[in-house]
């Protein structure tokens, strides 16, 4: 394994560089997945049938809490990558833990919101609007939930092996995933919630 010390640890081997490149290709596919979900939602948004409309069920405080929590977690995972690059491993690991705690809080609020929607009559089968809304939010939420398990697995490896070319690479790829979920959330926040409320 040829290690290039002029590059950050996560890019230091050919394999690492290819893994990062491959993950970007995966993110390209993810963009298309979410684009189709936004398409479905945009088309079915007004098909509410006898069920509630968006403005009836969206509650701004919960949405804002989710938004700021996710923005903060995106910032902390960015700090993790930065800390690993300048050798502050311990601080980086703490920031990763903080990221996961914020992610858990996000999922918690989202689960609460889903119960709230169901309580307001927006169940999966209530209307085309409700099912496309829950599908879009649920796909994003499922990604965040998966990210929590992924992040915990990386934490365990960091604990066992310390910071090396492999674990730095895994952490960096995880950070790409996490930032991407924040990007998707920005579009949900703007074009599902704010558009529904205005």
């Amino acid at each position: 394994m040829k290690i290039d010390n002029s590059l950050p640890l996560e890019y230091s081997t050919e394999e690492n560089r290819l893994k990062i490149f491959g993950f970007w290709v995966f993110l390209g596919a993810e963009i298309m997945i979410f684009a189709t979900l936004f398409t479905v939602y945009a088309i079915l948004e007004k098909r509410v049938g006898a069920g509630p409309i968006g403005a009836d069920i969206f509650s701004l405080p919960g949405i804002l809490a989710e938004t700021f929590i996710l923005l903060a977690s995106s910032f902390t995972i960015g700090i993790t990558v930065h800390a690993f690059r300048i050798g502050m491993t311990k601080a980086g690991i703490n920031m990763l833990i903080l990221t996961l705690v914020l992610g858990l809080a996000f999922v918690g609020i989202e689960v609460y919101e889903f119960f709230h929607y169901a309580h307001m009559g927006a169940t999966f089968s209530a209307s085309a609007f409700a099912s496309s809304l829950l599908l879009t939010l649920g796909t994003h939420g499922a990604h965040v939930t998966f990210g929590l398990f992924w992040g915990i697995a990386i934490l365990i490896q960091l604990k066992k092996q310390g910071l090396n070319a492999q674990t730095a690479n895994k952490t960096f790829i995880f950070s790409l995933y996490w930032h991407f979920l924040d990007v998707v959330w920005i579009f949900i926040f703007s074009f599902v919630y704010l558009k529904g409320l205005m």
Partner: protein
Amino acid sequence: MAKLFPKSHVIGFISSIVLTLLAMTVLVLDVSFASKMIILFITAILQASLQLFLFMHISESEDKKELYINIAYAAFVGIVTIVGSLLVMVWDM
């Protein structure tokens, strides 16, 4: 502490909060629906770019040209899917 929180990241974080608040002005502004959508588009795309260039370090890797092409292609397919479907099924053109 200052070493752990580089200026660029802190500014990026604050900008993303400011952009979120700017996007929220559509709830109170008394302008047309189209203008509100334009505000949402601008703030969302700025925020996405912030993540992409600042936090995801897309411009740092040696194969950045390929990454740009990949992301641009994905965005293109996504936009065609959304706008094309809306054209036919919602806007009735």
